[in-house]
């Protein structure tokens, strides 16, 4: 009799436990999912008009929008156009062209890149992504890849 009661009690406890567990999962699963932001699908943009040719003089740089990411376009002292991702490979700051030293500089932790995007000083671990530059009429066209 005693044994039988224990068996029944265990069974009820088991039912109660799994019921409570399932309820908790049913409550917290949606909550956890809610916390993770949905993936926003951007129209994949492979090329963009970064600016006008006469807008960027020799030895200057300019930030342009590549979709929702910043890009940097530079005209070197010799007049060549170069384009890079402007996102520092260290911790995500936005880099800038420094005319005084003719290099690319990140103010956040003093990271430095040369004009082919190579990381040459400070903490950045990787070079900047380089883009292709074409000039069509007045427009500077920057292309990925």
């Amino acid at each position, binding site marked *: 009799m005693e044994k039988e009661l224990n068996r029944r009690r265990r069974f009820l406890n088991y039912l109660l436990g799994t019921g409570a567990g399932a309820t908790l999962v049913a409550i917290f699963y949606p909550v956890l999912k809610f916390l993770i932001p949905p993936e926003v699908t951007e129209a994949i943009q492979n090329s963009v008009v970064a600016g006008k040719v006469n807008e960027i003089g020799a030895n200057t740089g300019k930030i342009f929008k590549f979709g929702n990411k*910043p890009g940097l376009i530079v005209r070197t002292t010799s007049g060549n156009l170069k384009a890079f991702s402007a996102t*520092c490979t260290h911790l995500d700051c936005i880099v*800038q062209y420094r005319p005084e030293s003719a290099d690319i500089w990140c103010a*956040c932790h003093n990271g430095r890149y040369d004009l082919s995007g190579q990381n040459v000083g400070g903490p950045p671990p990787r070079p900047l992504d380089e883009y292709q530059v074409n000039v069509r009429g007045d427009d500077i066209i920057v292309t990925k890849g």
Partner: protein
Amino acid sequence: MNPDISHPTGKADSLKQWLDDRLGIGEIFHLVQKKEVPVHRHEIWYYFGGMTLFLFMVQVFTGILLLLYYRPSAENAFESVQFIMTEVQFGWLIRSIHSWSANLMIATLFIHLFSVFFLKAYRSPRELTWVSGVLLLFIALGFGFSGYLLPWNQLAFFATKVGTDIAGVVPFVGEFMLRFLRGGEDVTGATLTRFFGFHVAVLPALTTALIGFHLLLVQKQGMSVPPSLEGKPVKTMKFFPNFLLRDLIGWILAIGVLAALSAIFPWELGEKADPFAPAPAGIRPEWYFLFMFQTLKLIPAKIWIFDGEVIGVLVFAVGGLFLFLVPFIDRPGKSGKSKTSSALTIAGILVVLFIVGMTIYGYLD
């Protein structure tokens, strides 16, 4: 009339009796009255917990006031803070006090934590008091980090980019944490909305609960005395009213300091954040993150085959976890003095020197 001696006569007394019958105030009061504070030459350190509590109350009060005008979106946040600063009567004062008090609160919190550490007040049975205190420290840093972004200015924008990117560096969970914190890939208006929610709802609720727990334990276990005085006769004073009145003097002084700082150095607003502008020169986080910032700046890009920043971030993360374990590592031995305990003290001194040194270096650099 023949007044009954055992029953209250006055209106006030009968109200007190009525409330006491229902709320049991007498019992609570009795508990408070039981608490004694040891009086000795290290007594000054007992004031920093209460000071932190006071500054937190200032935060809640001024924070709620700011909420009346603040608007949490990338389009409006900066302008709404500008409005607070220029149009709202005494808006500049309320905002400055909120910012100054946030900084002072973190400073007193650090002092409180290190004084508890060096006086070894975390030892059994006060382990959980220490653990809740360390949690409160991290929450306070979270308050500072999330609040810093709210005005949506250039400095805050980049500090948040860097700070959240650091979370992304952590192996395995980094990617998830980064998206969770930013509310997406990048720091955008979505990040601001999230940080606002953390700052004014999640963190205040957590803090209130933890402070309650922390204080309950302090009340229950009483104040510890430093090891150098253990076993010796120590004078005490009543917590209520003697110690509390001294606390109050400190709080009045704090109000004075806050008002003076806010009036003489009103908090700056800077320029509105622009996600397509280069990071401005001279960018640096709030002073309490500066030692980590400076360390990351000094670590080389590669350590052997690993990214330097990964190593740096992991070291700080392990240090943070280690902080929780202090009371479980330092268990008083039979003799009262132990090798681990002295080693911990020395490690603590080195950590303080490192933090202070790196912070100063960060300012000079």
